[in-house]
């Protein structure tokens, strides 16, 4: 993953036969390319612009990642190219439940649609919740589930102007950000028994580092939470695991990651539960493994910090939102219009 010379840093990402190489010294990069070329037969694709079906656009303000080519391929594959656009991926407050009276649809087609959508989540995080929702019905897909999946495809058609933005440090940024650059920003949220069938909660997290989105997730919890506080507490514990892994990764790259890392949560009881080693009636049943969070908090590695629900970015990973709220959070996720950068 990395090579050090005494003063310079060279980072290498290897994906089977595709290599990304970057670092603070252009000379080192060139040297590495030459060395690799003498060992294996290589094609130098120069500046990164197409990697694993993801397209990269370089601008003076930063790098923009999008999958326009992949998305339009998916739309024509499923004959969706002529459908009308929709502004949000999932109709607000949509709940999908058992629908045994509905007709079964072609399971292979359904799986193909879901599979393609999963890959698009890599560049368009805001559909993660919707994709997670439709993924729950892979074993017996019915008409309403396929309609929901196609709704996401129709939303994607309208996202061709959007890309995930990795900003470049410039003087335009507020002054304080130069000191904040080693900060990892983390949001974590959970709904409470949102699934109609098994009453489990869906949680999500979102990580930013160097002002760019680096990791996100929307997932149904595998245990049943008895209160919203418990659901949020479980979500925070799961986010902690990802948090520790990412911060270890960052340190491995000899970069700065300030501690304690702040987890932004919108549930005050979950926060007090993370600080207080008390065991009272309503929380005594919470599984020990989730108190891993409490242990990390007491070691000072991270802390839970309150964030008002309006600013909770991870909300978009836990439920189907109204359009205005959805668009606000989408902006905060780092999805920007491609043309504003030109």
């Amino acid at each position: 993953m990395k090579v050090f010379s005494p003063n310079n840093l060279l980072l290498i990402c290897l994906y089977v036969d595709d290599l990304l190489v970057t670092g603070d010294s252009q000379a080192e990069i060139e040297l590495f390319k030459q060395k690799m070329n003498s060992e294996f037969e290589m094609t130098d694709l120069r500046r990164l612009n197409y990697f694993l079906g993801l397209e990269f656009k370089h601008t003076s303000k930063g790098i923009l990642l999008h999958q326009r080519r992949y998305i339009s391929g998916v739309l024509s594959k499923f004959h969706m190219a002529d459908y009308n656009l929709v502004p949000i991926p999932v109709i607000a407050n949509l709940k999908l439940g058992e629908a045994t009276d509905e007709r079964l649809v072609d399971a292979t087609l359904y799986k193909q649609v879901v599979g393609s959508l999963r890959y698009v989540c890599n560049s368009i995080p805001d559909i993660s919740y919707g994709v997670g929702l439709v993924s729950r019905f892979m074993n017996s897909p019915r008409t309403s589930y396929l309609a929901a999946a196609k709704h996401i495809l129709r939303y994607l058609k309208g996202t061709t102007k959007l890309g995930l933005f990795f900003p470049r440090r410039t003087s335009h940024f507020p002054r304080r950000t130069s000191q904040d650059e080693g900060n990892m920003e983390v949001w974590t949220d959970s709904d409470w028994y949102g699934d109609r069938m098994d009453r489990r909660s869906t949680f999500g997290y979102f990580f930013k580092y160097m002002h760019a989105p680096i990791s996100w997730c929307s997932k149904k919890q595998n245990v049943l939470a008895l209160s919203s506080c418990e659901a949020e507490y479980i979500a925070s514990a799961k986010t902690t695991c990802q948090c520790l892994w990412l911060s270890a990764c960052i340190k491995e790259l000899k970069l700065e990651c300030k501690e304690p890392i702040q987890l932004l949560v919108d549930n005050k009881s979950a926060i007090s539960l993370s600080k207080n080693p008390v065991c009272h009636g309503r929380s005594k049943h919470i599984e020990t493994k989730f108190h891993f969070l409490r242990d990390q908090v007491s070691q000072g590695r991270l802390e839970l910090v309150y964030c008002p629900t309006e600013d909770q970015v991870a909300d978009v990973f836990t439920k189907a939102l109204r359009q205005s709220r959805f668009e606000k959070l989408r902006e905060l996720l780092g999805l920007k219009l491609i043309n504003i950068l030109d």
Partner: protein
Amino acid sequence: MLEELKSIEKNKTWELVDLPHHKHPIDVKWVFKTKFKPDGSIAKHKARLVAKGFLQKPGIDFTDVFAPVARLETVWLVIAVASWKGWEIGQLDVKSAFLNGPLEEEVYVRQPPGFERMGEEHKVFKLHKALYGLK
């Protein structure tokens, strides 16, 4: 097809041998693919020789299957850092990467259809390096 065979020969992937009596050779076949340029015109016709890996028996013909893969999160992390610091990101691609992997197990394949050696049709290739489709 000649290009693919040339690349295989150049890599010292295999040698022609008599099949030991206790071994089963694995069939190979050609897979053809047309590569297009971005404007839709034909860039090249590509032929790839693949082994029918599904004929291999676990424990006998292969032990582990793996590929080194960077998690996408780490890729995003590296891109975020490089973009913020204004570093150049270069990209490299290894040509016929799979054929570079040395093979530990003893694997025999039949000669590729249409390219059998005259007078030695009964012989098989002993693989030193991996072929596509192999486990």
